[in-house]
């Protein structure tokens, strides 16, 4: 089925007539993500489950934001969460490293396992959870400190042993930022461009060596070049980490992710309120070329949302 996806292309490029003809997987809809935008990939490997979500629901006070999500997220995969605004992508993502604990009204029901261990178990320390499962936010949020101190903050917090200069350099290098900032490590991070700030936040995150990185629309405020850098970075990081990314950018999901989950806002059974539901979860190629649900198809082809 992926025979026609032979070119290795990480960025969108102008469509050619040939490409369109070569897209036999979709007959009845014109999908806005063209096949040539997919990253070359073999069959997705599902080696090991990082997360298992069993009937996970998240509520804010009495209002349920996400209802009854069951899905597995795999090791060394990039998993994309897509869906219209307000369908609970961020909410679901934040429940994976207990960031929702910071919102007093938030409550998580159901079972959420990380390598088989209950993330919301009674003995689990949310601070420890976040050391293992890092997060990058939509809006770059460097601390108003020097570039160096931003990266060193995490390792100092977690008490990682070793030469701090080395740790900082390594993290910045892996975030693709080292050459740009090596001469101004003592400058305030607020003097950087938005794209640099976001890569600094990624460097800050990988400096603590988490096992999983959660990214909530990490590129939404960035230009295509910065976006491209961060996407390359994600593909590189995926060799060692599991990555879960929320994105509104279909092309981005298609380009980088292995698995894609589509969520949508649905009316509750009594039709009195709305909540987010997982509509479809599958290999990214499948979701974008041959989705199993007409709502997925409508969304990614730009008919709704």
């Amino acid at each position: 089925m992926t025979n026609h996806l032979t070119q290795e292309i990480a960025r969108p490029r102008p469509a050619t007539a040939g490409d369109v003809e070569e897209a036999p997987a979709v007959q009845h809809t014109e999908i806005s993500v063209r096949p040539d935008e997919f990253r070359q990939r073999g069959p997705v490997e599902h080696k090991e489950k990082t997360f298992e979500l069993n009937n996970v629901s998240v509520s804010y006070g009495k209002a349920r934001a996400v209802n009854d999500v069951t899905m597995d997220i795999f090791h060394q995969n990039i998993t994309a969460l897509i869906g219209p605004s307000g369908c609970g992508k961020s909410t679901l993502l934040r429940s994976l490293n207990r960031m929702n604990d910071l919102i007093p009204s938030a409550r998580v029901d159901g079972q959420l396992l990380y390598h088989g261990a209950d993330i919301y178990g009674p003995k689990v320390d949310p601070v420890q959870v976040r050391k293992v499962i890092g997060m990058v936010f939509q809006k770059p949020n460097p601390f108003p400190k020097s570039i160096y101190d931003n990266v060193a903050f995490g390792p100092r917090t977690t008490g990682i042993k070793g030469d701090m200069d080395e740790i900082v350099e390594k993290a910045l290098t892996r975030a693709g930022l080292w050459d740009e900032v090596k001469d101004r490590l003592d400058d305030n991070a607020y003097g950087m461009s938005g794209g640099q700030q976001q890569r600094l936040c990624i460097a800050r995150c990988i400096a603590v060596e988490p096992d999983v990185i959660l990214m909530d629309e990490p590129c939404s405020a960035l230009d295509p070049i910065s976006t491209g850098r961060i996407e390359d970075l994600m593909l590189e990081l995926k060799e060692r980490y599991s990555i879960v990314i929320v994105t509104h950018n279909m092309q981005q999901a298609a380009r980088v992710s292995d698995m894609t989950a589509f969520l949508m806002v649905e009316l509750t059974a009594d039709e009195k309120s709305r909540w987010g539901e997982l509509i479809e979860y599958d290999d990214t190629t499948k979701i974008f070329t041959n989705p199993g649900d007409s709502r997925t198809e409508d969304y990614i082809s730009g008919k709704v949302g």
Partner: protein
Amino acid sequence: MTMRGVVASSAGAGETPRRSLEAPSPRYGEKAIKVFLAACGGLSVLVTTGIVLSLAFGAIDFFREVPVHEFLFGTNWAPSFTPSHFGVLPIVTGTLNIVFWALVVSVPVGLASAIYLSEYAPNRVRKTIKPMLEILEGIPTVAIGLFALMFLRPLAADVLPFLDWGGVHSIGVAGVAVGLLIIPLVASISDDAMRAVPRGLREGAYALGASKLRVSARVVFPAAISGIVAAVVLAVSRAVGETMVVLLAAGARAQITANPTDSAQTMTAYIGQTATGEIAFGTVAYYTIFAVGALLFVMTLIMNLFAIRLVRRFREVYE
């Protein structure tokens, strides 16, 4: 939207609807209110100018009699004795002593409460404590002064019996009482400053596996530092200006001392006491009040300008 659409279509192409663009009434009320508001604003400016001018004129008269350097650097303060001495340093150090003890109490306690309120307290608790703090700020200072004299001073003598407690007046007790008085100010402003720190910064730190204490101490506190410093500066201004408490609890002996059990006069206590006593108009002693007032004014002005600049910087910090 729809309405206008209907009107436009029914009016047809030929008829352009004509509605007057002129004001339907002259709006005298609005103008009157504007004048009234401007007058109120003008009044406060006028009053301030008046105060400054009266202080300045009095001070000028004073400095005709007493050389500036003798006033500023003299160590003997006895303006109403004969022979009189006009060295202001004893009451300046008296003031500084009070400020010192006030800060020793109010800064740690105020900041700790602010950290608690902004980072730890559940919303419900915060909503009850914050207004209580604001009420505390409004307690009449004379009540605090009495509290210091009648309760704190004996308590201090009981708790620290090894100190040499001379009279009923004590700089330390008065300073601590002033400190209690300004805790709400420090707590409230620092709490505002810390709450103004964007949530994203906290989340960024939490996402790196930082504990609440670490987030508060290493991210929120430094990010709010200018606001916190501004709170402290305002606290200093307040302590410098505090009159009633020190008048009651610190006594009226103008002396240079660092001993908290001593009594000492402050600049405000001097003014308060002298201005309420019998004093002949036009004498040097009379003008002394103005000179001390002017010095006090300059000191607090400098502090406040400093605070305003800091507050401004604090507003820009995340841009």
